[in-house]
């Protein structure tokens, strides 16, 4: 598993550099559904962090519950 992390980092790096010229296939003016609040990845951080805590206490597993991005892509 320790060998997996550097591989993942290298893959992420490749994504950044090698694929830069890819044209976005969802244009900024086509993001009306993604910008809808119901499509937010984490609309209520107090609630999601609380439920993560409840499950972490009751169960043996933890981690990999995060996520950022999506949304309207506005700037």
């Amino acid at each position, binding site marked *: 598993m320790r060998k997996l992390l550097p591989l993942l980092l290298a893959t992420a790096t490749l994504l950044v550099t090698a694929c830069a010229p890819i044209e976005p296939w969802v244009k900024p003016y086509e993001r009306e559904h*993604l910008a809808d609040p119901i*499509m937010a990845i984490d609309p209520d951080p*107090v609630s999601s962090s*609380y439920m993560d805590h409840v499950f972490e206490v009751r169960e043996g597993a933890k981690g990999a519950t995060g996520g950022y*991005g*999506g949304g309207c892509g506005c700037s």
Partner: protein
Amino acid sequence: MKTVVWQRIAALALLLGTAAVHAGVLAEDRADVMYHRYQGGGITVQGPSVLVRKKFGESFAATANYYVDNISSASIDVVVSGASRYAERREQKSLAVEYLRGKTTYSASFVNSEENDYKADTYSLSVSQDMFGDLTTVSMGYSYGKDHIGSSVDPTFADGIERRNYRVGLTQVLTRNLLASLNFEAVTEQGYLQNPYRFIRFVNGPGSYALGQEVAPRTRTSNAGSVRLKYYLPWRAALDGQYRFYTDTWGINAHTAGLEYTQPLWNRWVFTGSYRYYTQNGTNFFMDLFPRPGYQNFMTRDKENSPLQTHTIGLGASYEFPLGFASSFIKRGTANLHVNHLMVNYSQFRNLTNFPPGTAEPGTEPLYSLSANVIQFFVSFWY
């Protein structure tokens, strides 16, 4: 190993930072006030959680959270050990700051959690980068935690845990209606990883058992990977599916699968319904009943590390209230109620509540199961 990994993360963070061209946006200002309550298995935990988030200019933001768990516990572990119901209070304070430069967001946070025999401090750093026309967000994070552990039973006891979390995440817009999120997290812990209030039991004579101290390894490394898809349905609704796989060096493998449906109705209401399934096998040193004391080096009867399955169903309702006079200082406000019902079935952990030593053939007691209700009521403001 840790310095090398940190160097690699720093190198990647620098790389991500230099690729910035256009500007991204920080999340909006908001405040949330929540009352939370967990009740089940003889335990009641309730309290507030307050979050305030504010941007400073276009590049900086800070988020502060104050959280309390007021615990009243007569759980099966407490009852069987002969202890009486106890009350405890855990207070958690956190502060996070974010800095946005181009399409890169850097954040740092500190979390402090304290209860009378456990103090935990966690420091975190993370970087996230928007790319490919904002279709992709890549993020990485690192946390370092230091826990100080005491025992209310033995004042001379003092130990600790050092914890390191490594996180990598990717969120990808797949179509106008579909989002995907992949996350990976590795955690390494070392120190006192057992529970001073938990015990094991072993056979100490025909038809009888005795309780003993649990002994767990002083290191634990875990890896978890999750995938999530969120889909926009044409009648304006959302369907969210998630799967997570977890594995650790204590032998636990766990699968989590969940589905959540979001439906807005009548202009101001949003309803959600969810189902979550969780299953784990036990750690390789768990036994409900050990044949004798000192049976093996590591022994635990901790039910959270035993084979179990959890089914959780949830319902949520959110109401966006009309602002009226408050519209001069609030942009939007919601009142929310989320209710979850958990059912946990243990396939090897037995319920000894009415079976003290000598009353039943050890190992024939009924298996334990618990159900709990979790309520969250919160009001959110965007200003």
